[in-house]
């Protein structure tokens, strides 16, 4: 059981000649094992900044990131152990896998880096990981990313994230670059893995429909602030904040006529 907590996190970017840019303003989010939190917001709302702060690619200007109540270590072995616990799946599987390396290399590295399994079992573990994400190990393990389809690549990226046996997973728009027809497959895979491993998942997306179906809680972010949060169904069915309402109205709904949808956006 792990809990990752962002507590009053603020991130300020210094923009040359234009003063400061407030990317995150007093954001608090809690992700616990076995639960999925969806982070929803439009481009530039600070979703990816949160992902970067959680994975320690960026440091928060103020506020704290706590794993099981302890602040995230700043460097060294302790930081590595933290990173082993918290892994990320990137948006674009065409860019997040190194075109130069084989699938085997992509999965072996994290296994060896964190000594997840003894050296003689690495090969078997690579195969297990590929099976976990429902890829045929024999057919994929010696391929390079460009020989795989988008969906297969994202599965490899998920397997890579799972290799270190993390307790928390940050998925930054994991399906938005994929073909519509295979999104569901990848999302269901994530949902299955979450249940199997009791993972805590932060699902970053701008797709409200999948956010509702795949998460327990929805946090709506607007210009770096949390404007609304709550159980998924409540947020979608009874949005309180007007930004959430606008966001809902802006997403295409097959039940409404197109013109109505446009009306809704203008509000």
């Amino acid at each position: 059981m792990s809990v990752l907590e962002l507590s009053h996190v603020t991130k300020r970017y210094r923009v040359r000649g234009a003063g400061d840019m407030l990317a995150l303003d007093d954001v608090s989010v809690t992700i616990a094992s076995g639960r999925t939190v969806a982070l929803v917001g439009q481009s530039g709302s600070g979703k990816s900044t949160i992902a970067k702060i959680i994975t320690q690619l960026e440091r928060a200007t103020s506020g704290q990131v706590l794993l099981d109540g302890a602040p995230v270590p700043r460097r060294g072995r302790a930081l590595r152990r933290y990173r082993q616990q918290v892994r990320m799946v990137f948006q674009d599987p065409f860019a997040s896998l190194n075109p130069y390396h084989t699938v085997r290399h992509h999965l072996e590295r994290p296994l060896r880096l964190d000594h997840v399994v003894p050296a003689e079992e690495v090969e078997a573990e690579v195969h297990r990981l590929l099976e976990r994400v429902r890829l045929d190990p024999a057919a994929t393990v010696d391929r390079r990313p460009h020989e795989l389809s988008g969906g297969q690549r994202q599965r490899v990226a998920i397997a890579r994230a799972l290799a270190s046996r993390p307790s928390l997973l940050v998925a930054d728009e994991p399906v938005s670059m994929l073909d519509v027809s295979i999104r569901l497959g990848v999302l269901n895979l994530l949902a299955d893995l979450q249940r199997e491993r009791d993972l805590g998942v932060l699902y970053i997306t701008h797709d409200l429909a999948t956010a509702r179906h795949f998460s327990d809680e929805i946090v709506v972010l607007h210009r770096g602030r949390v404007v609304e949060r709550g159980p998924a169904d409540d947020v979608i069915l009874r949005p309180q904040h007007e930004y959430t309402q606008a966001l809902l109205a802006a997403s295409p709904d097959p039940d409404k006529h197109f013109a109505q949808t446009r009306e809704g956006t203008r509000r």
Partner: protein
Amino acid sequence: MSEIRNTSPRGEDFEPVPAQAGVDAIGMAAGVDQTPLPEEDRSYSQGQLVLRRFLRHRGAMTSLVVLAVIVVVAFTSIGIGPIPGWWNKNYILTYPKIGDGSPTWAHPFGQDTIGKDYFALVMRGTQRSLIIAFGVGVISTVIGTVIGALAGFYRGWVESVLMRLTDLFIVIPLLVLAAVLGKIASGWGVWGLTLMLGLVTWTGLARLVRGEVLSLRERDFVTAARAVGTSANRIIFKHVLPNAVGVIIVAATLAIASAILLETSLSFLGFGVQAPDTSLGTLISTYQNAFTTRPWLFWWPGVLILAIALCVNFLGDGLRDAFDPRQNRTKA
């Protein structure tokens, strides 16, 4: 977490099963060819593709053969160091002059003014020029790659310092700088000259590599590596540079071509390889007055310089075409 039923029959991605009604209809409408792919369009790894395109590049292949012949003949004919070659004369001794020294069976490239065998001399010069050119190519590639990679990867003050240093080397006229350094290093022989030329010719490569690294470092796979705590060294050498290898190989090849010409110019001006040793540039310089009376003394080294520089340039072009992903079909 709830789950939406996957509409795919096997509960998998759609991609391996294109037999979905909607997809099929679109495929048919667009007239998508359903026949199996011909051998030509099979999937190859990036390396295999590059190799295939390179091997099909007629100019590059011809150049490779010509260059190989030049290298083999230059090094086997008079031998190298203590190893003797198959040619029975050497480049130091003088031989009885036959006629006016024009090419004969005994001296296929003719003889110089005092009766030295010109074939042996030209072969020695070719050896020296090749060694210098390849040495300069290697040294400038290593320096340029390291400086460019560091500048591009670390950005900030590291980049400022390294790139201003590069600019400094660029604004000083190369020939002058090389001449001065070459004169200083002439005591160390050919290797000193090679080192000095390598130290002044890395600038173009550094800029090229920096540009490539700047774009590669923003790619997600680098971010992914950083997110799991990979060290900067490992990222540079395992993730960034392997992806820049195409650019580096092409630039290195072209650097060799320009090194040949730089060495020749320097030697011609008298700052390069010093007598009694010789290089192609030195030969032309020594016998420049003989052009009207003994033209072969000019033509042999001239033609060899031209051939080597052309071949290396063609090889560089071939490599560039081969590494260019937008290129499907090779030009002749």
